[in-house]
């Protein structure tokens, strides 16, 4: 087998160590020697146990280290790089391709704060608000819900089940106010799926164009203030699509401290696309309530992040990221990415809607549901909402957007003032993560932290709701 020469001196050290190795490692002794010289802790651990001559080997390693001003892993990396350069030079020819002017322009626009921040707002407005909020949550949802479900599927299914099951209770499990099909599947397919699909589509375009790493470097300084690095931009932006998926993606963050802060902020202050779709629909027509909602959520995001940074022990994060070239998104890539995320969503999340409907049905049957609704009426009243809203908050535990959708029905009935709309949207956005996210929090962060974060979020959301209501009352603000 051909091996790379690391220069006469290093090669000599390698062969001296090689000669002392007797144990049969699954990799070549040459490779083991190189690992030893580079201080690889795992290999050192094995060799120190297996080799009788270990002290001698150690002596050679120390001798080698003294020969150079730099650490040995450094030298190996440099020599390897030189070798790679030589190989690449032999086989690669670069045709200097003129860089696309448009891409250079876009690169410049995205990486300096003076144009980057307006561009971010532009993308948020058109990509998130117009495309996901208005087109996805408006046009598509209306079409699928009204034209397909309410007009065709629901009456047909209801008829079918009434004929199959003569018992009212069993009918209620599938059809009716909280039926698995008429509520659970309808919400999942008609309300949530179009919103999530449009979001994942927009996200895939951003991902494929190389915009996200540029956003990361743009926002790194701000994120440092809340204990995160620019790298966290990717899970947090993904959270606007699905917080559950985003919580899983926090794995890409390098330290435990960053992962905890990101999980907390996702659970608390990042509304998922489904929730946002319904909240935007709720706040439609009350621009001042919308402003209060946005301002409060951003403020909570920054304050909680800042406090988490102060409280959690550990070293501040460092930011490093490769910046890929700007590319025109490939349609095939965008579709494949959207498709695979939707597939994940359908597989993991839609069953949860069915379970949620089932638990609500069961809860109503046994009566526990009513007890919880009664208990929740108190905090709901404290934050200045009509007690009917407590049903929506309990739904909110099963899925946050589910809860928001419940409020939507209340708004349609004219039960909520603009003040109450703002408060309920704020509380619901901050409120407990949906059951899927709660499970993901526990899975990723462990029992103690996962439950701790969730409990904190529960108390905190109502406290903020209470505070906002208090401010409205004291200053007699009417939105």
């Amino acid at each position, binding site marked *: 087998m051909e091996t790379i020469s690391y220069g006469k001196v290093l090669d000599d050290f390698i062969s001296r160590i090689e000669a002392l190795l007797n144990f049969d490692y699954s990799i070549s002794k040459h490779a083991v020697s190189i690992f030893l010289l580079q201080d690889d802790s795992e290999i050192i651990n094995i060799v120190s146990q297996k080799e009788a001559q270990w002290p001698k080997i150690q002596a050679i390693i120390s001798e080698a*280290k*003294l*020969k*150079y*001003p*730099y650490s040995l*892993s*450094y030298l190996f*990396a*440099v020599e390897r*790089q*030189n070798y790679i350069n030589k190989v690449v030079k032999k086989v690669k020819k670069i045709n200097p391709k003129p860089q696309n002017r448009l891409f250079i322009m876009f690169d410049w626009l995205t*990486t*300096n*704060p003076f144009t980057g921040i307006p561009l971010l707002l532009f993308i948020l407005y058109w990509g998130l608000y117009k495309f996901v909020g208005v087109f996805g949550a408006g046009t598509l949802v209306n079409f699928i819900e009204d034209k397909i479900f309410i007009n065709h599927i629901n009456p047909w299914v209801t008829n079918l089940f009434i004929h199959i099951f003569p018992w009212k209770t069993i009918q209620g499990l599938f059809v009716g106010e909280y039926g698995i099909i008429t509520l659970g599947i309808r919400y999942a397919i008609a309300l949530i799926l179009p919103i999530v699909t449009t979001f994942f589509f927009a996200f895939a375009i951003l991902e494929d164009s190389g915009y996200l*790493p540029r956003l*990361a*470097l*743009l*926002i*790194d*300084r701000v994120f*440092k203030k809340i204990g995160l*690095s*620019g790298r966290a931009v990717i899970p947090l932006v993904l959270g606007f699509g699905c917080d559950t998926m985003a919580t899983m993606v926090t794995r890409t963050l*390098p330290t435990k401290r960053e992962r905890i802060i990101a999980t907390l902020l996702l659970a608390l202050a990042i509304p998922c696309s489904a929730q946002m779709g319904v909240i935007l629909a709720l706040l439609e027509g009350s621009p001042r309530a919308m402003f209060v909602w946005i301002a409060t959520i951003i403020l909570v995001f920054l304050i909680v992040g800042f406090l988490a940074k102060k409280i959690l022990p550990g*070293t501040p994060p*460092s*930011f*490093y*990221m*490769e*910046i*890929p*070239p700007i590319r025109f998104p490939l349609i095939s890539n965008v579709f494949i990415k959207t498709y695979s995320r939707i597939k994940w969503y359908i597989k993991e999340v839609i069953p949860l809607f069915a379970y949620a409907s089932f638990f609500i049905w069961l809860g109503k049957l046994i009566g526990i549901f009513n007890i919880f609704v009664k208990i929740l009426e108190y905090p709901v009243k404290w934050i200045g909402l009509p007690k009917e809203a407590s049903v929506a908050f309990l739904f909110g535990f099963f899925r946050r957007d589910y809860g928001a959708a419940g409020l939507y029905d209340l708004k349609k009935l004219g039960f909520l003032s603009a003040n109450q709309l703002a408060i309920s949207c704020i509380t619901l956005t901050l409120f407990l993560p949906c059951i899927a996210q709660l499970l993901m929090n526990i899975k990723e962060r462990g029992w103690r932290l996962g439950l701790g974060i969730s409990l904190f979020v529960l108390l905190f959301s109502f406290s903020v709701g209470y505070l906002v209501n208090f401010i409205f009352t004291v200053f007699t603000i009417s939105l």
Partner: protein
Amino acid sequence: MDNLSEHAEEILEALWIQGEDRPGKPLDLGIIKDDPACQELSKLNFIKVIDGHIILLDKGRKQAELAIRRHRLSERLMTDIFDVKKEDVDSISCKFEHLLHKGLEDKVCALLGHPRLCPHGKNIPRGECCKNKKKQLGVLISPLADLRKNEEGKIAYLHTKDPLVMQKLMSLGVLPGLEIKVMQHFPSCVFKIGHSQFAIDKELALSIYVRGI
């Protein structure tokens, strides 16, 4: 302090390092008890001897800090510029540091780009020149963070206290000898190596030292 003997200077350094490693602990006089250099130091009010323990006085601490600075700068010079073998760095630096007087140490410091750590990863006490550092002519090595936009250089060395940070940089392909070009500094530092671009924060940009070309 021109008239301080080399030996007395070394005693001051040793005392200072002891204080750096184990702050607050009384310093034992040990074998240097009857050393004439010791008396020289007490005469100058640099140290005070009480019950066989040495106390480094403020005046002495200042002198010691300057001596340490000269020593660690010499080490950097030997390592980065002269590529002296690791086993020889210490002995040569020990002699060389005594030549770095009369502002010469600040010139070496500027030449090396006001390094913050010695090759062993210990702090180099900052001098006046580091506080009001300007772009000086004849700078050989400077941290990436001090390079101007579009300026190019060759990576001289990486230096961080945290070995993990070093690994991160190396995994990005930031290695000594490679050519590097600064694309921007604000809001994050962006640089180019070969055909790849990377973004890092200011802290990391301060730990990559670049030789100008």
